[in-house]
């Protein structure tokens, strides 16, 4: 094959595909040009000429979409055992960055599904599970190479994972009831409010003051109050969704609602709140009480009410390789096709505050894109290539096992390592 799984001599021009920029209408016969990991031009092939010296690839008959943005995943980790700290329900000081192995195969599997940006979250065992990690799925050896922020302890590396409903209930220090859960989280935010005024006070008086000692537990919550850190709120049942919204309204922040399984019951309430929704799409109901009334109609109903909607995998709950399928099922449930594609890309990028860099095919954004064999929402379509910042990180021609499965069985797999 002429594809190579390494960076090509840049600039690169992919010519002839049907392009869905998401930020604009589809381009039936388009060209996308990128250089130094950034998009340079996206437009009709009749108008975009590959620059001199560009590596030109003919992708006639293919479909190109932006790299997929998964707003809620647990890849790169050992899953529940690593992400659900069990020593107490309030863990704002923890960060999933400290649980991520950049060499984990699940990251490569997600690349095979077309995922290029991912929010790796702590689990939902805790009311506050910890800080999340916004990652770019570059081929890397360390988690720092995956981050979208310059310093793993600095700002902009992720959000704050929160949860309500039955998952954070338990014995010992854990709440038994929804009442207790709501009360303890309100107390956390009251404490953070106080901390915030302490932090702000010296500056208001204009006096130079020594910076207060960091408070690993309170400061991430203060950042939520300041709008500097997004609260990603796991919530399924209709009444739990309301509880999450009211917490935000009480303390002056707008959470991103995650899962939103019974969101179809209260689309107007959600729309009024202004809270974006990152929806899980599971093809069938049940498995726990909160998921018994899960519906494929949720994403479409929220979309029609004007709510910004993203779709996520919650990998391993749904499989990153089937991320496009999740959106297709949302279409089956009544979502528009453009809305479903935005839900996999630009809408999620906005929910992570990363839309200046990712989520659509626009000049100046990162050259993250997926080459598909056909229309995005067909069962017969495969991800052929995933590009991150101008580098091919998955190619079905050479890495098919990450798409089909059997990646650890290369030697025994029929046809060999492919």
């Amino acid at each position, binding site marked *: 094959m002429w594809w190579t799984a390494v960076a090509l001599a840049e600039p690169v021009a992919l010519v002839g595909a049907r392009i869905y920029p998401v930020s604009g209408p589809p381009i039936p016969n388009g060209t996308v040009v990128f250089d130094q990991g950034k998009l340079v031009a996206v437009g009709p092939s009749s108008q975009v000429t590959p620059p001199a010296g560009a590596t030109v690839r003919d992708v006639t008959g293919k479909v190109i979409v932006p790299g997929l943005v998964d707003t809620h995943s647990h890849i790169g980790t050992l*899953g529940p055992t690593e992400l659900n700290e069990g020593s107490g329900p309030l863990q704002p000081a923890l960060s999933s960055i400290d649980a991520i192995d950049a060499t984990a195969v*699940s990251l490569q599997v997600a690349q095979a599904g077309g995922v290029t940006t991912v929010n790796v979250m702590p689990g939902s065992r805790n009311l506050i599970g910890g800080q999340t990690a916004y990652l770019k799925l570059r081929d890397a050896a360390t988690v720092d190479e995956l981050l979208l922020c310059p310093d793993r302890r600095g700002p902009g590396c992720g959000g704050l994972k929160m949860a309500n409903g039955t998952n954070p209930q338990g014995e010992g220090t854990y709440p038994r009831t929804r009442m207790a859960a709501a009360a303890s989280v309100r107390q956390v935010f009251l404490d953070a409010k106080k901390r915030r005024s302490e932090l702000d006070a010296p500056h208001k008086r204009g006096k130079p003051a020594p910076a207060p000692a960091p408070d690993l537990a309170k400061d991430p919550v203060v950042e939520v109050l300041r709008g500097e850190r997004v609260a990603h709120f796991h919530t399924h049942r209709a009444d739990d969704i309301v509880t999450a919204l009211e917490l935000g309204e009480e303390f002056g922040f707008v959470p991103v609602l995650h899962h939103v399984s019974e969101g179809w019951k209260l689309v107007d309430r959600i729309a009024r709140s202004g809270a974006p929704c990152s929806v899980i799409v*599971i*093809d*069938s*109901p*049940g*498995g*726990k*009480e909160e*998921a*018994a009334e*899960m519906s494929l109609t949720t994403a479409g109903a929220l979309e029609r009410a004007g709510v910004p909607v993203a779709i996520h995998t919650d990998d*391993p*709950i749904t*499989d990153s390789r*089937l991320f496009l*399928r999740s959106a*297709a*099922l949302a*279409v*089956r449930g009544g979502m528009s096709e453009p809305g479903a594609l935005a839900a996999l890309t630009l809408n999620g990028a906005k929910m992570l505050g990363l839309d200046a860099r990712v989520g659509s095919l626009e000049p100046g954004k990162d050259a993250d894109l997926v080459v598909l064999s056909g229309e995005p*929402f*067909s*069962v*017969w379509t*495969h991800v052929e290539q995933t590009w991150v910042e101008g580098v091919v990180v998955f190619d079905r021609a050479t890495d098919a*096992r990450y*798409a*089909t*499965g*059997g990646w*650890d*069985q290369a030697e*025994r*797999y*029929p046809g060999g390592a492919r």
Partner: protein
Amino acid sequence: MIGWWSVAFAADRVVLADRVYPVSGPPIERGAVVVRDGKITAVGAADAIPVPPGAEVVRAAAVTPGMIDGLCSIGLTGPLNRPFDQDHLQPGDPVEPELRALDAYDPWSELVGWVRELGVTTVHVGPSAGAPVSGRTAVMSTAPGPALVPEAFVLVTLGEASKEFPGSQTRMGSVAEVRQALAAAREYRERRKLPLADRPEIDLGSEALVAALDRRARVVAVAHRADDLLAALRLREEFGLDLVLAGATEGYLVRDAIARAGVPVWVGPVMQRQWSSLGETHDGTFENASLLAAAGVTVGFMTGYEAYVPKVRVVGWEAAIAAANGLGPDAALKAVTLTNAQLLGIAEHKGSLEVGKDADLVLYDGDPFEYRTRVCGVWIGGASVTDGSCQ
């Protein structure tokens, strides 16, 4: 809710479809299926089949036979995962062949309704994987009614699920429990031939195992790892079992051995999680069915048991992923209809659109395997069991 044993329509009903998939033969463009008294009376090109006078005519983009789930616990498990709606696993004796899925199957379970609305008309139900000898399965219509096969297969579990079950804690132990049970049943069978005074009392579990030894009942072994699949083949050889393998995540790694044994495989669920807590599904591949079929193995599809979200899977949707990963649509459709009917011993009445068979039909508004295609009609025995419309 639909009633017990829905009454079949006496009048003719006709489906006119852009494409009819009889499965027993190639797809028919612009085809027709005529139904009377719950049976199929004609299948063919629409212009060659006269519409009977007074017949109800329904149009669809596509029509297939009803989908059949090769093995699952639907109806034994409800959606809530609370004790009152979970009847799929009886903890206790590692050898419990006397258990009958029929006695726990709730035909009105909303999960049965869920798969029925999506085109699944027949389900082969059993206990979930656990006890090495797990019980007796049943074949049920998804329309509430009497069992199609009240006592079907004897279910065997090998591998991690059997180790987790109370009793043996190793693969050696699990296999030994199955072997010991079958050996004891063989002994029971001999002693049942003794004069009345010396004859043992009837034992329900032993009777089930004798049925397996006599090949009056097939045996289905749920196993995922390649070595567990080979262990099942050894048990088959040793006791002359009429075996079907189920789950078979690593079947593709030992496909030649399975093909040589002539043992069919129920693959599934195709979209199962590869990071399961039991650690046996890590090497699963969407190409499993395709690779097995290419090696000459007879392949059907199943959905098995789901412990967590979701609580049920739709076998047609699972087959679609295999179809798109090497198997192709025609082979995948056959696997989930006619092959499953044959493996369950109900192909005389189910599994294809042929004259004389039950009118179990699924009507679609597009490609049956496509994600966005809607099932717009499900007929079981000629009667509509969904409210949808294709018009």
